[in-house]
């Protein structure tokens, strides 16, 4: 009786340890997954391609049924709010620039030598003849402020978690979409972004075609924006080179620099 008791006492800690380890193994992944919120994922995705500051060189290809056009762009960004983009080629477009500073946007055309503050009414229009609207370029932190974010699906693919996030605009949000869907990888790389109208019809979609390491980060380097009602119209952005967290002068994101930096 004593022996049995002693033996029982001897075994119990072992069992306890096994149970604890098993439990830890079982619980750990889900605990990690639960810690990642939709908000973190979206914020992470926004910061990944921007960093504190960034300098990107990219090519934009606009494809139409009867023609296509390729342009080169350099872009600088700071935080979630400020961006400066400048066309460098072809010669016809070189110098055209766009500045986003907080909620405001300006364009600059060297041929007119004028900066124009972009009225809100024009922001749903196409930017530089592409399938992107000015709003697509300026929307960064709107997503965190004005949308209700929710992870609706997660799956594992090639050892990585893929999250599908529904972003439903709040009732008073200055957003026209019925909802947006973001598909993100657990390293914050954006795989797909879909825009739905309020009848939940898919209107346009941005898909990532290529993911590479660039400037020390793994990011989506080739993305295609396409409107669903015009399947043979699309725009691709290819990131050729990128640097992150670099020193940028404060005057970079000013209207003065928008004009002065062109020459």
């Amino acid at each position, binding site marked *: 009786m004593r022996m049995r008791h002693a033996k029982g006492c001897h075994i119990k800690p072992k069992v306890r340890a096994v149970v604890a380890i098993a439990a830890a193994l079982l619980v750990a992944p889900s605990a990690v997954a639960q810690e990642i919120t939709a908000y973190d994922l979206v914020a992470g995705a926004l910061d990944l391609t921007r960093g504190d500051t960034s300098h990107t060189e990219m090519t934009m290809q606009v494809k139409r049924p009867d023609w296509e056009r390729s342009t080169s762009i350099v872009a600088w960004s700071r935080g979630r709010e400020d961006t400066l983009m400048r066309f460098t080629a072809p010669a016809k477009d070189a110098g055209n620039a766009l500045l986003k500073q907080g909620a405001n946007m300006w364009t600059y055309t060297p041929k007119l030598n004028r900066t124009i503050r972009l009225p*809100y*009414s024009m922001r*749903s229009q196409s930017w530089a003849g592409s399938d992107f609207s000015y709003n697509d370029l300026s929307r960064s932190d709107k997503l965190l402020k004005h949308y209700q974010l929710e992870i609706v699906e997660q799956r594992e693919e090639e050892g990585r978690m893929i999250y599908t996030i529904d972003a439903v605009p709040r009732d008073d949000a*200055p*957003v026209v*979409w019925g909802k947006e869907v973001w598909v993100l990888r657990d390293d914050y790389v954006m795989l797909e972004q879909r825009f739905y*109208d*309020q009848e939940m019809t898919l209107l346009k979609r941005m898909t990532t075609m290529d993911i590479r390491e660039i400037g020390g980060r793994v990011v989506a380097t080739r993305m295609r924006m396409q409107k669903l009602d015009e399947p043979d119209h699309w725009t691709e952005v290819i990131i050729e080179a990128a640097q992150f967290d670099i020193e940028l002068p404060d005057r970079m994101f000013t209207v003065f620099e928008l004009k002065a930096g062109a020459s």
Partner: protein
Amino acid sequence: MNPMLLFQLSWRNLWRRRRRNGLLLAAISFAVAGVVVLNSFIRGMQVQMTQTAVNNMNGHVKVLAPGYLDDPGIARSFDLAKDWRPDVLEGIEAEMVAGWASRVRVPAVVMSERETRGVQLVGIDPAAEAISFIGDMAVEGERLSGSEDGRLLVGRALAEQLETAAGRRIVLITQGADGRNREAGYRIAGLYDAEGEGLEKAFLFTGIANVQNLLDASVITELSVRLTEDRHGPNVLSRMIDALTGLDVLTWQDLEPTAAAMHEFVDVAIAMWFLIVMGALAFGLINTLVTAVMERTRELGMLRAVGMRPRAVVVQVVVESMLIMVLGIVIGLALGMLLYLPMASGIDMSAFAAATEEFGFSALMVPKLEAGDIWLVVSLAIVIGLLASVYPAWRSVKITPLEAMRR
């Protein structure tokens, strides 16, 4: 000579040529009836245009901040005490005022998933808007519940352009009191039908408190006062100008000069139209009277020979002319009334709705017969009857017994 005898003579003379005079009578009656009916149409249109102009958020008298018309926006606004009423002013009686409404009206940009449009955002107190077209427009979906309602009423034509519908959200962008942009999403309560697509495309309505919140301003940009009758306009206008110093106090005529010009033109048009028709008729009358006089050369010569004064001959012709004219007017008015009465409640023009809405008219055409217009018809007809008898009368006195005997 006994006037009764002269009258009898003229009356009998008329009956001597029944067919000829009957045709003339028919022509006069027909012209008078036609003029009465057509005038009632033109007058009805004029009244309707006035109503439309007054209904178009103008009222009879409208108060605006100086400069608002040149540069509309929340920067051009003013404040009135919450309990301000037009009838507290000296000289304005409560029964002159049908109602009043304050609004905030600012230019805005509206965006849906597919389209962007420029509009006027109007914050209203729905309860006060019985004085404008907002009060009686048809709404599909829900109406605004009150001045706190944060939803929108969107015109049907605009909703079609935006490809949106009741229950959906659209985004509004406008400038706040501090000059900075405001943007926010709003849900659409309902779609309204107004008379004219222009209105539907121009105005977006929401609760006035909702707009004031969005703009961070507790002020209003306009106040409309509607009167029970048009004629109180000048009096109320001058009282309000005296009371509301520093603000622009305007009439609907100031705000819609085209409608005001049309309004004045209609008065002239009615008179001209009548003059033309009656003028043409006058020549028929002259012709008939001259023929009658020439036919009776022998007779008139004989009457002169037995001592009838030339004046009596003239009176005889004039009385003949007047008799046929007055008879024509009476029959014409009766005929006009007969045609007008079945249409008095309005003629449905919805078959041409697209065209009438284009010009800002309602699809229901309501003719209006005014006593003043009837008096105009009667008096002008009598004057023309008198004028038309001048030449035949002159011809009749030129007949001498000698000339008459030679015939």
